[in-house]
């Protein structure tokens, strides 16, 4: 039996019409204001990486499962692959590039990851640091179990989480 396979109906072919006109958004990223015209379908993570040009926020999946793209949106960690850029219009965003001080001093969470070997390949690390700092804002003195549950939306393939958990607990002790 022959089967002709086209993955979508023809609607997407004329994508300019289908996707609508670009929308102007203004966001503040790490203290700097940016204004761009973006496609309505553009994800926030793509906006940050491709339009703002900050590539520390990584993409690790297409199902909002891995958390590599976590950043702070109005002070709270979100997976930036699950937010449209247009939804972030007017928002205050902090990415991994905005965590260390301008003089090069690492954020206490970054320092804790370094001191406790909480990273290996480093690909999940920016998202992990952003999620962990947000976790400590909500719960400054978590138990080990609370750290493990609090980070369950962020996957790491290298560390087995042992030293990530240790890092976050150390950062909490240091009052990060």
């Amino acid at each position, binding site marked *: *039996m*022959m*089967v*002709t*396979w*086209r*993955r*979508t109906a*023809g609607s*997407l*072919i004329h*994508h300019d019409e289908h996707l609508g006109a670009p929308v102007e958004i203004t966001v503040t990223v790490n203290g700097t204001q940016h204004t761009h015209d973006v*496609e309505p*379908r553009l994800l926030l993570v793509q906006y940050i990486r491709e339009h703002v*040009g*900050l*590539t*520390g*926020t*990584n*993409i*690790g*999946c*297409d*199902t909002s*499962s*891995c958390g590599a793209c976590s950043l702070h949106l109005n002070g709270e960690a979100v997976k930036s692959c699950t937010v449209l850029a247009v939804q972030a219009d007017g928002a205050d965003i902090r990415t*991994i*590039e905005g*965590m*260390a001080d301008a003089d090069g001093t*690492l954020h206490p969470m970054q320092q804790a990851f*370094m001191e406790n*070997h909480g*990273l*290996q*390949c*480093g*690909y*999940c*690390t*920016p998202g992990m*640091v952003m999620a962990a700092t947000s976790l400590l804002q909500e719960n400054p003195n978590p138990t080990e*179990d609370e750290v*493990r*549950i609090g*980070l*369950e939306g*962020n*996957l*790491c*393939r*290298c*560390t*087995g*989480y*042992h*030293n*990530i*958990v240790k890092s976050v607990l150390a950062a909490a002790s240091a009052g990060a």
Partner: protein
Amino acid sequence: MTITEDPSTGTGVIGSRLLRKEDPVLLTGEAVFTNDMKVPGAFHLAVLRSPYAHATIVSIDTSAAAEMPGVRAVYTGADLADLWAAPMPCAWAVTEDMLNPPHHPIATDAVNFVGDGVAVVLADSDAIAHDAIDAIDVTYDPSDAVTDLEDALSDRVLVHSDLGTNTSYTWNLLIEETDGAVQRAFDKAAHTVSERYVQQRLIPMAMEPRAVVAIPQPFGGDITLYTSTQIPHVLKVMIAVTLGVPEHQLRVVAPAVGGGFGSKLDVYAEELLCVALSRKHGVPIRWNETRSENAVATIQGRGQIQRMELAADANGKLTAMRVRLTADMGAYMQLITPGIPLLGAFLYAGVYDLPKAYDFSCTGVFTNLTPTDAYRGAGRPEATYAIERAMDALATEIGIDPLELRRRNFIQPEQFPYEACTGLVYDSGDHDKAATIAADLIDYQAVRARQATQNVAGSTRRLGLGVSTYFEMCGLAPSRVLASLNYSAGGWEAATVRILPTAKVQVVTGTSPHGQGHETSWSMIVADKLGIDPADVDVLHSDTMIAPLGMDTYGSRSLPVGGVAVSMACDKVIEKAKQIAAHQMEANVDDLEFVDGEFRVTGTPSKSTPLAAIAFAAFTAHDLPDGLEPNLEAQVTYDPPNFSWPFGTHMCLVEVDTETGDVDVLQYVAVDDCGNQVNPLIVEGQVHGGVIQGLAQALYEGADYDTDGNLRTSTLADYLVPAASDVPPITLGRSVTPSPTNSLGVKGVGEAGTIGAAPAVMNAIVDALSGLGVRDVAMPASPNTIWNAVASAQSITTPGGTQ
């Protein structure tokens, strides 16, 4: 417990927990992964992939896609056929008559797995390229797919009909003192066990999917390939061969690489496509893999059915072993697909003193599934799983404690170097020590007592204690051994140590780290040797223009081969510096010693010259000994005389809820002896990560295909890479038994955790359920699988019982 102190030649750097140099750029987002590169004018490549596991391509209509705004080109396999000088490479023809059907980056007439490339689009953005592949019409004529290994062996349906069979090869290793020794041992055995284990397919899921950027120089002819790979050096050679690109004009760079675990130890279609099409179009071409593409288009690991037979005497001492493997190659051979199960062939006897009565055979078969290849441990976790599970089965058969059975069979410390029945020589080991440390940490006897109390009739929360020991074949590899296995490359590693005029040091290594911390560890080796601060050492790697020679990173080889090469290059550069020092100090070379970063006249420590002064003198070259070349630089290419043999014992304590099938890992203890440790912080990190990957095979992960060959676990929402909340903390014990075969006494540790973990966890689960009649549980041991295993055992052991 006895712990051998790490030797240090002076500064105490080696063996210290130095924080990693790699971390600041990774922690701040400054590191550049391939996908982060900003490349003006690049075309974005997207691949249309087959939705069928097995079909003939009847026709492809690319016209609608080609007309879309922003689309630069659309190609089918037929359009690209002229670009390939050779099929995609397989470097390991394991037998003379191995069948290896030609495999091109894009299929032409037929597709053989879901994910096989059918057409490519080049466009101005990734989004446009993906829109365009959706607009390509392909007419397929689908046929039945081969998705089951035993079905594949039957040749009911042929993956590649022109081959006439699905069997690619059968590889045998029969070691007998005298003819028929294996069968005689089984005939005479007091105890035998015959077990069947399934190594489910695993998806490596490095957190960074693959990414490729190829940048041509249209007029000069040079081309640079940036790719998320473990093997820039091997890749350069293979691309030159496959595309006919002059190798000297090809530069391959692995920028920051977000994990590999074997999955980036390969030559991939998209790398070849980007290089070939960037040459054709004269513009940069880039490709980013999506996660769901990664699940089907990047290799998978494991995929074996193992039959394991042990013969033992009345005391449980092993007398013979028979291993029969059926190994899933997938639809095609990737770089070292056929050799992966054979890397385990030498390890089925584990840490045990098996006489020359070993019969191993492996049959590699094609299926209509994603190709398999190396995944963390590559053949060695599979071997360890089989022997360690079978040892537990044997202990049950004999009625003795599984740790006691292991102790009766351990190769003893005084037997090293130990010539195994396979002919390979194990460098060093102390298995009883590792087992004792692990048993003490988990409080073995107390746990057994708790089990006796808790696992009583009617108990629905049962304790299980699992033991696993292992020997690992690392330090790949002595080139002559690779030759004897018909592998098409050597196993050496190159290093250059260059002392700059200001006494800062550049190290060039042929290893290609992607999370292992080589920059830190190699700096420590050099700092220790040269008596300098590790901060004054820069380690250059992963760029074939900067580090032209190398065999890259896999198989826990980097430290025992590459690190040792760095150490040897330090020795060589010190020897040269010593000649200059002797000349300037007007002393005899033989009267000089190099201590704490300076040359001293033996017996007259007040007379000394620091290395820094010699470095500057070598640079100015004003006053060098006659015939000595200026500058301080030494290069070494080191071919190891033997593999290195890390070993260890893992123990796992679980509580299994027999009503829900849920497993709670209460404690996990790992004692991994990797010889001397350059940086224990990094060693521990490697073990932690490895253990969780092994535990994940036992409890969570498995590539789940339907009978049509569709992958049902193609996203991270479906494929259960564990999160922090899914895994236990790990207790590490320390045992250090230096390797006598290299000057650093190191063995390698990248895969150890993975190798020890799966059998420890599964032995624990089976141990917990053994009182209910359960003898085996399949991996991954999901609650459903466990519940069914219990129900089925109960219906057998309780006549008339119902499930």
